[in-house]
């Protein structure tokens, strides 16, 4: 345990160093792949913040991704610099989260889950409907720009920031409050925790990164349309990554994202439906057999600290 605690930060620093100089010698394809991995880490971590920590399942987290993508694309077309536009995407995603969270998080039970399930569909319909702003079903084309390397750093930064934020939250009183809500909301209220307030905080935090990442992805793709930025499968993938890695942990979502993304790139991308059947199967299997995920099992077996 002690030895582990000593080499882990060192290995992490080394990994970050390698990743920060990676674009200097990598091919364009390599940079794009890593950038997508960063995107998945940021998305999985964000889902973990609300669903892993408070136990409130978000079935529509891709809505924030799409919101960020559209905000950014519209602003970029109007001439705003893309990093600024991506931040605006994050802000709009947080605003959307507030609008949805305010009515739905006051209640216990599955209201929030279902509201999130519908949100994504509604946004997709709206994006097609308001043609003047979004280009409707035809989509929006962004001016061409070769910014892969800069987007690589931006994505990496977001992934790092969400992971760091998760570390800070899990090791703080705020995180303990969230986890108390997850374990027993009535008991949490009895202990004087304003559960509604903390659920809203967690939800707003969890919407920010998907918004920014959605904006960066829109800039990277150069073209967006309703079906490309609101796909249900993105939400599914986020959920599987977190469940597989270990929900409610700090490094579980990262682990899940790396493993799943690697397999996805190598094998499954060629079989879209079989791939999704497998994702559904993994969710069922993990919930029934390994509810704490890989990291949860490792924590238990090797007696690792809770803050892993």
């Amino acid at each position, binding site marked *: 345990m002690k030895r582990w605690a000593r080499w882990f930060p060192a290995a992490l620093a080394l990994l970050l160093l390698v990743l920060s100089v990676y674009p200097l010698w990598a091919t364009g394809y390599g940079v794009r792949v890593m950038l997508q991995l960063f995107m998945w880490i940021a998305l999985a971590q964000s889902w973990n913040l609300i669903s892993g920590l408070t136990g409130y399942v978000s079935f529509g987290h891709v809505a924030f991704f799409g919101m960020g993508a559209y905000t950014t694309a519209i602003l970029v077309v109007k001439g705003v610099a893309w990093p600024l536009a991506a931040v605006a995407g994050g802000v709009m995603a947080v605003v959307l989260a507030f609008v949805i969270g305010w009515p739905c998080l006051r*209640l216990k039970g*599955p209201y929030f889950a*279902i509201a999130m*399930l519908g*949100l994504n569909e509604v946004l997709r319909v709206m994006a097609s409907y308001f043609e003047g702003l979004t280009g409707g079903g035809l989509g929006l084309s962004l001016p061409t720009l070769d910014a892969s390397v800069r987007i690589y750093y931006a994505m990496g930064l977001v992934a790092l920031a969400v992971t760091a934020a998760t570390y800070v939250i899990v090791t703080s009183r705020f995180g303990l409050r969230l986890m108390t809500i997850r374990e027993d909301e009535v008991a949490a209220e009895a202990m004087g925790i304003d559960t509604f307030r903390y659920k809203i905080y967690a939800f707003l935090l969890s919407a920010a990164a998907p918004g920014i990442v959605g904006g960066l992805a829109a800039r990277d793709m150069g073209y967006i349309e309703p079906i490309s930025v609101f796909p249900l499968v993105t939400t599914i993938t986020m959920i599987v990554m977190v469940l597989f890695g270990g929900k409610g942990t700090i490094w579980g979502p990262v682990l899940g994202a790396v493993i799943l993304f690697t397999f996805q790139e190598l094998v499954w991308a060629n079989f879209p*439906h*079989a791939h*999704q059947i497998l994702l559904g199967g993994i*969710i069922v299997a993990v*919930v029934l057999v390994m509810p704490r995920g890989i990291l949860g099992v490792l924590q238990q077996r090797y007696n690792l600290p809770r803050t892993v």
Partner: protein
Amino acid sequence: MTPHITPVMLGQVIVSGLLAGALYAMVALGLGLIFGVMRVLNVAHGPLLMLGAYITYFLFITVGLNPYLSLLVSMPIVFVIGVALQHFLVRRVVDAPELSSLLLTFGISIALVNVAQLAFTSDLRSVEFITGAFLVGPFAFSKARVIACLFAAAITALAFLFLQKTRLGKAIRAVSQSREVAQVCGIDVHRIHMLAFGMASALAAAGGSLMTVMIAIQPEMGAVYTFKSFLVIVLGGAGNYPGALLGGLLLGLVEQLASLFLTTQVNEAVAYVLLVLVLLLRPTGLLGGRST
């Protein structure tokens, strides 16, 4: 953009809304039944509806079976699927935190939809069985929708009769009121859960079968009905079975009125705004339900 709206158009829309509402009410009763009996929200409810639709479609295409008669096949098949899902999977998470049951049924739903996509492709399919409309005075009502509404009303009435009058129905209601007390009274709770899940699945399948005659079907058609059914039980009040009837009719009406005054494109958005409004203003439902 809004055309001049005449009283005849308004009347037409109100009746169409009620016709659609009867179908919503039947499907939602199924979702509400599972939710009431074991506090599980079945995200796979819509995909089970989709299975019912495909059973009817293939029976019509291959052996030319009357789509309304195929209810006698689709409902039992999906009933058995529902019982199996409950027995092998859902049973294990009934007592777990709701995160588990939500995720589990979500996983089942993804698997069902994609198996259907693999097996049946994503093509839109439809059954041309009854076309045309009944003409009553100045009104015209799609024959398929009127018949679907009648079947839905009959099936819903039978389901209520079963819940109110039979011993098994009483046992289901007892379990949904208090599982512990029901158990003490000698009710086999696991069996009741299986029965409730099967019955709910059959109600969803009936909805799918009836829709096959009205609209084109495809594997992803289900998700929106999970959402709408939930909206219906929220409108009526969770755990309040008659409330589901009112909620269904209300949803059908609001959707049709919205498509008259706005456009049909915003249909889903209207249902969504309705859900958020009800959660904000009257979270216990219009008739009031058990709090969760």
